[in-house]
């Protein structure tokens, strides 16, 4: 593709040119290549547009720990359920509503009589609190940097006294490090999430590239964006180089949204946290700093969910392996049988950002 030709987001002819370029690069490399993306929206784009059927043999693009709903640990869901069962109204994103905890989901809790509301944003949860001053409104806050920043902005703006946050926010870069270090994960490069990078900036990946000597390309979510980012990554692989590149410059800068970042780090600090099915990850969970303690639902409510073990079926769930790039959804014995979108065993089958849900909806195999 010529340098001057503008990107047409949904132009199959340009996609075909990029696919040819990928063929050439793979022929030069002459061995299997495994790339990892860390965003459910990338998996959505790849599956929804059928992009895997355009990829050359030997090139696999796998989903990493890039769905915030999927990596939310079951005890975190249990905390939200316990708070709802204590009589508070728990407000959360739609994706989170049906994710199973060890015993039940928030949807189950609501069916049992608890008050659970689906909201689209942190500010909608605050509006709910302002409109219902006699009720405790707890925002079960999930998501990576893209949603952590708005949650922080809300807390920074003196929300009502009956509002609090149960933070399950997570921070992606440490998880990428953990996956890169896993001995049985063989990744040749990362396709980094354009959404998160709009907040954090792509510059924060510089130390990662140096430490792990792997290429990282930040990519957008249109089909051409994704193919272009893959092409850039393959060039690094062919040249045997590490490097950092921004293939989504219309949205992402090197420094990111500095004001949003400042607020985010003003409100949140990182602590180690268990990511569902993957590992305990140092510095990957975001909790409220002391000055915001009065809005911390963990401190406001006495939450100690009974831990009597998860549903035995979840022991068979391989979401952890899928999110570490070690397996595909159809390698799971439960996929499409015991585990379906209407009766999910693992969180990956719930969220529209989850690999299993996406594969169930669009199919994952290229040879349709």
């Amino acid at each position, binding site marked *: 593709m010529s340098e001057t030709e503008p990107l047409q987001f*949904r132009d*199959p002819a340009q*996609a075909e040119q990029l696919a040819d370029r990928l063929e050439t690069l793979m022929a030069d490399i002459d061995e299997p290549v495994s790339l990892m993306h860390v965003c459910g*929206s990338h998996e959505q784009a790849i*599956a*929804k*547009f*059928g*992009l*895997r*059927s*355009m990829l050359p043999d030997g090139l696999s693009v796998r989903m990493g720990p890039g769905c*915030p*709903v999927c990596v939310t640990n079951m005890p975190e869901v249990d905390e939200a359920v316990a708070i709802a*069962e204590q*009589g508070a109204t728990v407000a959360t*994103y*739609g*994706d*989170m*509503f*049906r994710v199973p905890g060890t015993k039940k989901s928030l*949807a189950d*809790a609501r*069916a*049992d*009589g*608890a*008050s659970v509301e*689906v909201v*689209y944003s942190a500010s909608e949860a605050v509006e709910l609190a302002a409109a219902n001053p006699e009720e405790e409104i707890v925002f079960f806050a*999930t*998501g*990576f940097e*893209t*949603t952590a920043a708005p949650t922080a902005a809300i807390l920074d703006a003196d929300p009502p006294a009956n509002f609090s946050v149960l933070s399950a926010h997570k921070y992606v870069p440490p998880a990428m490090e953990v996956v890169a270090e896993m001995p049985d994960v063989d990744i040749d490069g990362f396709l980094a999430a354009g*959404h998160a990078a709009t907040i954090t900036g792509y510059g924060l990946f510089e130390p990662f590239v140096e430490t792990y000597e792997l290429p990282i390309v930040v990519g957008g979510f249109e*089909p051409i964006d994704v193919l272009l980012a893959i092409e850039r990554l393959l060039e690094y692989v062919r040249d045997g180089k590490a490097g950092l590149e921004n293939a989504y410059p219309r949205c992402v800068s090197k420094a990111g949204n500095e004001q949003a970042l400042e607020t985010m780090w003003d409100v949140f600090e990182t602590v180690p946290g268990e990511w569902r099915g993957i590992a305990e990850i140092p510095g990957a969970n975001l909790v409220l700093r002391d000055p915001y303690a009065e809005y911390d639902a963990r401190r406001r409510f006495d939450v100690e969910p009974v831990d009597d073990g998860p549903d035995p079926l979840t022991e068979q769930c391989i979401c952890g392996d899928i999110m570490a790039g070690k397996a595909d959804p159809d390698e799971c014995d439960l996929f499409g049988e015991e585990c*379906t*979108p*209407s*009766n999910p065993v693992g969180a990956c089958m719930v*969220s*529209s*950002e989850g690999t299993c849900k996406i594969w*169930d*909806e*669009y*199919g994952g195999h*290229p040879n*349709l």
Partner: protein
Amino acid sequence: MTRDTTESDQEFVTLAHGAGGGAMRSLLDELVVPQFTGNGAETGNDTLVGLPELDDGAVHPAGEGALVITTDSHVVSPRFFPGGDIGRLAVAGTVNDLAVMGATTPTALTCSLVIEEGVPTADVERVIESMAETARQAGVPISTGDTKVMGNGEIDGILINTAGVAYVDREQPVPDAGLEPGDSIIVSGSMGDHGIALLAEREGFDFTGALESDVAPVNDLVNVALDAGRITAMKDPTRGGLANALNEMAGKADVGIDLTEESIPVSGPIASAGEVLGIDPLSVANEGKVVMGVTPEDAEDVLAAIHTVPGGEDAAIIGQVTDDHAGRVVVDTGFGRRYLSEPEGEPLPRIC
């Protein structure tokens, strides 16, 4: 306020059972159909299309001809929405269920009204006026009914049940199970208008008035199509949208369907709102559209005929029926190929 769940070994009906798709089908297969289908044999009454077919209506022999019967209950929030209201929905929904059975001149509708105390009488008046107007448009009388009032909180506002009957020639009914390999798939207009408009309205998203439900009777449009060529199978893509309708049609006929995404009409505002909400316009309800399989040699004639009917201007051939991948719908996106699967559960907005 939690309910005592200590004896919760029981299974409960969930909202997923009401959202169409696999959960609802298993509820019907396990609890409803086996009990009801015994009755026909016991009473000696026969059906040409009966409950086990789970089609849009039943067809019974009646004299030289046949009687098509259908019923539907309507609840919707909000009860007045851009482009329509629950009354229009209740009449159009039943007229359309008859129409896609091939019964385009309905004989009569019934109206069973259940109202929660506290609903403004002005709302009821507006809903009834809308029902009357829509029935006039569809050319059908509403000839019997029933009205109940329930206590506050016992139902949500207004529930309307309508049933419809139509007397037709015995050969006339069109099943939803009749697709044959080679058939062209035609939709009568843009997809997802009702579902996306309602979701945006319900959640308070302002798309500057660009989104309107398509709720309307389609019997005139179907009538013209039936005159123009051989329609092998037909459905109105309501709950679960085009994705649900086509998967059901493919499954029942044990054929595959290949679609070309580019050819599927979706209006610009609906496509944009769908992207913002993270909801696929092909997976949400239409209330004034038809999807049909047409024998290939008649496809262009049927399409041209639909184009002449108000509401059918955007009709398009969107794909073909195939022997491959039986029971599944595959979409060529212009980039690659992927499934269009049956949606499960209520559509929920995504996190980011």
